[in-house]
């Protein structure tokens, strides 16, 4: 049972990580708490519903398209709406709420209130140490790991990635060093929405697809990011896995309610004791 719980937790946690990464990045670079992050997840899922579910395109092509669609929309919205509010925390937060409301209602108008199901591209299960893992979730987890690796390489080795890190750490110095912040913002928002879109696209066949599907992952990303520290990439990874595992263990051993309460209690405690997150620097 322990192995099963570990397996369940890891599979769930990896998706939290992908969601949280984009969320934390937008905050780190633009100081915007993006409440619309879950809606980009929804967009990715809807694209898969259309391309894979209805038109029968290959699954991975649909997933990529979902990510790209979310990214493009993200970049457009960044330029039109968010750019003017960079580093202005409160209006930025409110703008993201407005965008969330609009995207959600567009989803509702286009796809109706009912939840849709996407056919499953992978079926069957595999076993290890007595733990069972369904193949579809495993594929999602593998994709999440690949995305994580690419994202890591992107941050570590690409010019753009390095520039993003510089802006996140110290926007003024970065701009003195010739980093064009506008480009960085667009890229950051684009990458963040790409990640959210990919997550939604990957999860589309696993959960149901509907206009309200973004709320839960958004809430999870929120919790993860606070645990790991707003703006911290490593924190998002650690926080996501921590949340996934703690949920898996607590809801199996106690109850889902206990898991839910524990996650918010962790948030309260972390914000009070270590406002910069478990991995954040303490000095402020």
């Amino acid at each position: 049972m322990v192995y099963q719980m570990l397996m369940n937790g890891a599979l769930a946690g990896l998706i939290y990580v992908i969601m949280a990464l984009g969320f934390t990045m937008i905050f780190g670079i633009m100081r915007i708490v993006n409440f619309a992050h879950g809606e980009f997840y929804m967009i990715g899922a809807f694209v898969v519903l259309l391309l894979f579910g209805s038109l029968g395109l290959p699954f991975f092509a649909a997933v990529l398209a979902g990510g790209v669609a979310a990214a493009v929309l993200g970049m457009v919205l960044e330029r039109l709406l968010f750019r003017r509010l960079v580093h202005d925390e409160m209006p930025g937060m409110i703008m993201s709420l407005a965008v969330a409301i609009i995207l959600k209602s567009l989803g509702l108008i286009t796809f109706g209130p009912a939840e849709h199901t996407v056919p499953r591209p992978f079926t069957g299960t595999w076993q290890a140490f007595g733990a069972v893992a369904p193949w579809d979730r495993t594929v999602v987890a593998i994709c999440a790991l690949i995305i994580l690796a690419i994202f890591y390489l992107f941050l570590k080795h690409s010019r753009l990635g390095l520039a993003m890190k510089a802006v996140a750490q110290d926007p003024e110095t970065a701009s003195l060093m010739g980093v064009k912040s506008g480009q960085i913002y667009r890229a950051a928002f684009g990458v963040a929405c790409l990640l959210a879109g990919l997550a939604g696209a990957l999860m589309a066949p696993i959960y149901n697809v509907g206009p309200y599907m973004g709320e839960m992952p958004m809430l999870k990303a929120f919790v993860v990011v606070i645990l790991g520290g707003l703006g911290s990439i490593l924190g998002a990874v650690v926080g996501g896995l921590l949340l996934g595992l703690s949920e898996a263990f607590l809801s199996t051993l106690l109850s889902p309610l206990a898991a839910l309460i524990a996650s918010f209690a962790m948030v309260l405690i972390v914000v009070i004791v270590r406002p910069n997150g478990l991995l954040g620097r303490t000095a402020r």
Partner: protein
Amino acid sequence: MRKTYLAYLIVAALATLPWVVGGRYVFHVATMITIMIPLALSLNLMLKVGQLSLAQAAFMGIGAYGAVLLTMRLDFPPMLSVFAGGLLAAATAAICGPVFLRIKGVYFALLTFAFGQIVNLVFQEWTSLFGGNSGIYGIPKLSVFGMRFSTTQHYYLFGLVFCAVCYVALRLLERSEIGRIFQALKEDETLSRSLGSNALAWRVAAFVGSALIAGIAGGIYGFYIGFLSPDAFTFWLSVDLIVMNVVGGATSVLGPVLGAIFIVPLPEFLREARAFQLLIYGVVLIIFLVLIKDGLVTLFERRKPG
């Protein structure tokens, strides 16, 4: 200055409108406005000390459940319960405040968000006390000096009085020395503290005051609607309060009042739009964020220099 009076005039005219038009429906919408105005003002009070609180819905809920349960379980007179509910919310704020308000900026918003979620979970899960998701029904009507609030009109009048009290109180506060202190703390806390001001104590005071207002408004809501369930006090209510402050203008006390008057009836005008209602709400919000940054109130007030 004169323009501000114009705003007062309009607000006063709108306040009498329900009697002109008549009918329970109009009174209902008007009553909901008078319940939301104090809530929007309670958020505004926190903004005055530079803290965005997402806990206002939770305080409203504590006030509502507190008041209703005091009357239904312990036979408190309803009117007393409304204020006791407010005190309950204020007490909660006084207990959490000294810990919460050490945290500033966006982290405070996140902290109060988590607090609101937990409070709502308690309402949902502690079914023996709060009735869970099915809620509490059969709540008696409010009454004062033996007179029962039997019609919507009574609640509207009561709400109107409470709005006026809150508005005047906050306006006096803003102009008093305390307003000066809040302004100083918001602008430069380090400097203010170096001059001897106990910033934490003042912020806690603002938090307690805002919880008191939100709690009383919650009590009025509970007795007026006659039914309570946790759905009414979610994060999205706090969001609505933010929207009211943004649309009305958070820099002034009049702003949230105008914001509530604009936002609360909006769904009623958009009833036919149904699915598009949410869309229009979002678009209105963006229009204000982009085009009318300091809110409706700027149409009536000259901006301060600097």
